[in-house]
């Protein structure tokens, strides 16, 4: 009781102080709550495997920050003292619709910032609008590097590393563990993420192991097509033994189910860059021996990692949602955390509640310990994150009755991303000069 009174007193004083400074220096007026729009798939095939785990991750961390129950060093309540009121919106329905929804969030509902976005397509679409409307936007999951390499962004940040690292790490892992792979093919969705993922994997393989042969018939079905019988036949006929896929959001589950019955996984070595959701949703049905990535130190690969923030996140998530957190849960949680850290730092520096410019200045180039390892916004002039990316091999643990990953190996950012200021694709095609692995 007493401590609560003190806390309240402290908060009031802080707010009072903030107000005084605000009046003097002219930054934003202290707020009790900030409204933040959070976009994630709430309907359509990607909702179950991606959207909802992402929303859960965000919700968990927002509630913890509002209540001040995050573990150290983030135990201070609030976002620069303010509580976050999250407005969740559905990311389904096409890019044009998302652009309209983004405008509504900013112009109609007056949010202070926008967070989230899973699909690379949506990220590409909303980024120019975010710049136009000058609204701080933190992208959480999407992977195409084009977002920051087509133009320099001012208002848009991404707390997730881009697809180049996922693909290069995949190539490294394959060449490390499967030395006898002579040729490869792929099945990827026909849009920014799938096209980029395979293209980068292909170039990385060509540069790192010129003797391997690429298939002349990789498959690019439409996203959310659902039925892959014919594509599986095509891949089966292909002599390439290694199959790269960046399927996600319902498609990976469908693909695994259809391929599994056809003995596909006995014949082919599949490497999936982001199929973690299927490992959990299919449980013991999911085949052993698939190379699985989680796009960072997230999900399946770090389930038993005892690093305190990760342990807290896994435990609290399990308690609240009765499931393990997946990649998207981490990715959304990390975006929320980044906003908190930036706002707290900006508040301290400004001596009061920070305005958007101050928050952005604090966010730029930020480096922080997240729920999934250390993340640094070191590319694209401090707007684009890098962090290690790892792969492991799926294995069903009978005793625990849970999915696990063995032979997990992480690749450090110096090894898998172009140095700051360089174009990823050009760097990749030049043979990744300066990469330290």
């Amino acid at each position: 009781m007493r401590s609560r009174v003190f806390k309240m007193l402290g908060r009031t004083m802080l707010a009072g102080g903030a107000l005084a400074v605000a009046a003097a220096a002219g930054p934003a007026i202290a707020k009790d709550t900030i409204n933040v729009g959070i976009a994630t798939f709430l309907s359509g095939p990607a909702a179950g495997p991606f959207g909802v785990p992402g929303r859960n991750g965000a919700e968990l961390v927002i509630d913890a920050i509002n209540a001040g129950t995050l573990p150290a060093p983030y135990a201070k309540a609030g976002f620069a003292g303010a509580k976050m009121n999250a407005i969740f919106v559905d990311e389904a329905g096409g890019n044009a619709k998302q652009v309209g929804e983004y405008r509504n969030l900013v112009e109609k509902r007056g949010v202070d910032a926008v967070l989230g976005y899973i699909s690379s397509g949506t990220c590409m679409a909303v980024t120019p609008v975010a710049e136009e409307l000058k609204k701080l936007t933190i992208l959480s999951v999407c992977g195409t590097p084009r977002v920051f390499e087509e133009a320099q962004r001012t208002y848009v940040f991404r707390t997730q590393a881009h697809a180049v690292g996922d693909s290069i790490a995949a190539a490294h892992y394959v060449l490390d563990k499967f030395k006898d792979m002579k040729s490869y093919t792929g099945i990827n969705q026909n849009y920014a993420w799938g096209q980029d993922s395979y293209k980068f994997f292909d170039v990385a393989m060509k540069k790192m192991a010129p003797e391997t042969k690429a298939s002349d018939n990789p498959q690019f079905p439409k996203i959310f097509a659902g039925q892959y019988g014919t594509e599986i036949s095509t891949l089966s006929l292909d002599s390439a033994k290694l199959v790269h896929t960046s399927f996600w959001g319902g498609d990976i589950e469908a693909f695994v189910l259809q391929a599994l019955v056809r003995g596909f996984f006995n014949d082919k070595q599949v490497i999936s860059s982001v199929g973690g959701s299927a490992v959990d949703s299919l449980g013991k049905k999911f085949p052993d021996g698939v190379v699985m990535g989680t796009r960072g130190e997230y999900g399946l690969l770090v389930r038993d990692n005892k690093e305190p923030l990760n342990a807290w996140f896994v435990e609290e998530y399990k308690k609240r949602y009765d499931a393990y957190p997946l990649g998207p849960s981490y990715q959304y949680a990390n975006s929320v955390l980044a906003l908190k850290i930036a706002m707290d730092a900006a508040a301290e520096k400004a001596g009061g509640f920070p305005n958007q410019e101050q928050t952005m200045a604090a966010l730029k180039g930020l480096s922080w310990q997240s729920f999934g390892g250390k993340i640094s916004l070191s590319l694209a002039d401090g707007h684009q994150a890098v962090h290690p990316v790892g792969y492991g091999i799926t294995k069903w643990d009978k005793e625990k009755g849970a999915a696990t990953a063995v032979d997990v190996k992480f690749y450090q950012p110096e090894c898998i991303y172009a140095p700051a200021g360089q174009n990823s694709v050009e760097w990749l095609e030049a043979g990744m000069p300066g990469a330290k692995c």
Partner: protein
Amino acid sequence: MQLITTMLLDGLSYASYLFIVSVGLTIIFGVMKILNVAHGAFYAWGAYGAAYTIGLASDNDWPDWIGFLLIFGSAILVGLVLGAIIERVILRKMYHEEEVLIVLATFGIFLILEDIILLVFGVNPYFAYQPMALLGSIKMGGIIRDVYSLTLFGLAILVALGCWYGLNKTKWGKLLSVVIYDREISLAMGINVQMVYLVTFVLGATLGALGGAYIAPTISVAPGFGIDVIVLSFAVVVIGGMGSIPGALIGALMVGILRAIAVHKFPEFELFVIFGVMAVVLMIRPEGLFAPEKARRI
């Protein structure tokens, strides 16, 4: 050679699937002259019904073969309940309206049913792989195939034979042809046209739901997957001739095999071939390849 066999098998398997989903659409159009957009919703509901009940059965450790009963059971249930409600409550009041307005009404029904799925079943995907896993796999033409998809051929043939028998060899089928030929005269002759319409619509809905229920074990059953099916089955039905059952068969075969060739050889044209063929057929023979010749009524 191996490629040709594979393309043929892939094509046939996809064609069987297309035939099963679109035959209900063509029956409803043939008898009632309604182009039923809500067909996609029946498909989705059938899939959800099957996936949900198979999941329940698996949770209770029932034997896997029960899954097949559940597939047919949920298709019939969905067809009976949704079909009857929609026909009696909405469509019955609309038969005097223009065709196009009825299409729009079914579009409205489709939108409503899609969202009710979301409200009832939530957004998490359902898996009902047990029946597919039960049947295992077989090596054909050099590659391994799952037996479950091959049973689609059998089901398609069964459905085709069933429709043919029902229409040509039963009293009911004759009644149907009379109603198709002239609704007013049938009424005057004391045929219960309302009943015929109700039964036809329920039958069509059941077949649509069966398509979804039967495909459910092979996919991740998730919201929003009824949308693409509608235009696909439109294409099949239009190519073969709206209202013609052999037409639906031919349409399904053409689309299935052309798509298989496209995916194997020209992946970029996968969707283009389907609708390209639809447009070409409509331009050359608007009534479709197999439509019965009709006298023009003035």
